[in-house]
């Protein structure tokens, strides 16, 4: 029986990108549907009634919500191709820990950079860089967070790279100057087709952020 897989997504969402990358890594055929978040589809509201958010992965009619949960689901169902989580329980716990860290910190601090000004923006920049430096520490000298192979934490973090140019322009700073190893890692990831095809162009994301700033009335 052929699997039916639909991904409800929104092109600039780093959370959606995670799922796109995971599906691409495993070569899983699926239908991609772009949602208009100002006019959410009936399907989205039906499949994610609790949060009404994207991404939503619908597998044979059954929804899976929340990007970290979706990536683990994909890894568990299609376990034979390109494993993302390590097999050792302690390494898995470490990968999950840092994925949770990314979710708790990166998005919110990043948002402060484009959405605020003055002291609040400076605080956002500082905390954002501190978090990236901690992640650089976790990466160490490995080519990927997953070690020799691209893995779960790489999937979780790399989508934010598509937002770095927007953060830099809005915050007037250079992320590469502060975190060169992390930028090198991101560029290494982009060599992979699963990543390059899943991440939007950085200029396009910056354009989107400028539009958002207009909508929110931010200079």
């Amino acid at each position, binding site marked *: 029986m052929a699997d039916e897989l639909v991904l409800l997504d929104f092109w600039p969402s780093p959370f959606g990108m995670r799922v796109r990358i995971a599906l691409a890594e495993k070569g899983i055929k699926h239908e991609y549907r772009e949602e208009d978040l100002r006019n959410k589809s009936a399907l989205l509201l039906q499949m994610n009634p609790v949060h009404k958010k994207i991404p939503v992965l619908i597998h044979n009619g059954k929804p*899976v919500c*929340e990007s970290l949960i979706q990536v*683990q689901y994909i890894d568990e169902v299609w376990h034979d191709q390109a494993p993302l989580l390590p097999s050792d329980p302690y390494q898995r*716990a470490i990968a*999950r*820990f840092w994925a949770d*860290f990314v979710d708790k910190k990166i998005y919110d601090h990043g948002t402060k950079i484009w959405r605020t000004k003055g002291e609040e923006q400076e605080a956002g920049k500082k905390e954002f860089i501190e978090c990236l430096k901690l992640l650089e520490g976790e990466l160490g000298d490995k080519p990927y967070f997953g070690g020799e192979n691209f893995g779960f934490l790489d999937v979780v973090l790399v989508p934010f790279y598509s937002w770095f140019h927007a953060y830099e322009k809005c915050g007037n700073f250079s992320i590469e100057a502060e975190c060169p190893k992390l930028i090198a890692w991101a560029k290494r990831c982009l060599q992979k087709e699963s990543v390059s095809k899943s991440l939007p162009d950085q200029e396009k994301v910056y354009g989107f952020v400028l539009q958002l700033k207009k909508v929110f009335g931010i200079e």
Partner: protein
Amino acid sequence: MAKSDVKVLGSWPSQYVMRARIALNIKSVSYEFLEEKLWESKSELLLKSNPVHKKIPVLIHGDKPICESLIIVQYIDEVWSSGPSILPSDPHERATARFWAAYLDEKWFPSIRSIGMAQGEDARKTAIAQVEEGLVLLEEAFGNCSKGKPFFGGDQIGYLDIAFGCFLAWLRVTEKISGIKLLSEANTPALLNWADRFCSDAAVKDVMPDTEKLAEFGKMVIAKMRGAAPPK
């Protein structure tokens, strides 16, 4: 395995610490419980084992620290794989259990806390309404997950039972202090019965704090939060 090989850094009031202890109990793993004194200075061991968040619980297995309660529970399930399973075996059921556990941590428990912190009757009513909305969702989730069995996990306590059940002590304290029934026969009959079963379970009853004792502790916490900031 020697008892000192597995340690839990925690504190008796913490619902998150309870998750780790229940999981270890389910697997019949002996461990040493190292009590952190909340509101006093954090131990060297805690700061060394969890330098990023400096929070409890931390599970120390041999010399390896594992942090974040739900991650600890999954680790315990994966390492002691010969014991009863904690996560469901079906991937979609696992995803559902993880979804509701995340919902509990990100949305539902913060709404419980807001009841205690609410200043003024309107704020209190809003906070209570949010908690009750969440309980309606969770009552439905219980029906879907348990499929007529006693627990979210089926015949035995599982991941979502642990994730949710750990909040029951604070829920009961909130009911006591604010004089309202959050779990009730009228609104959440299934959850009401589940709560009793959960709290009486062998893996749970010795680590579930006494409601009176927790209420006293809760009053102290609220007083501190409304007054001076606690020492870091």
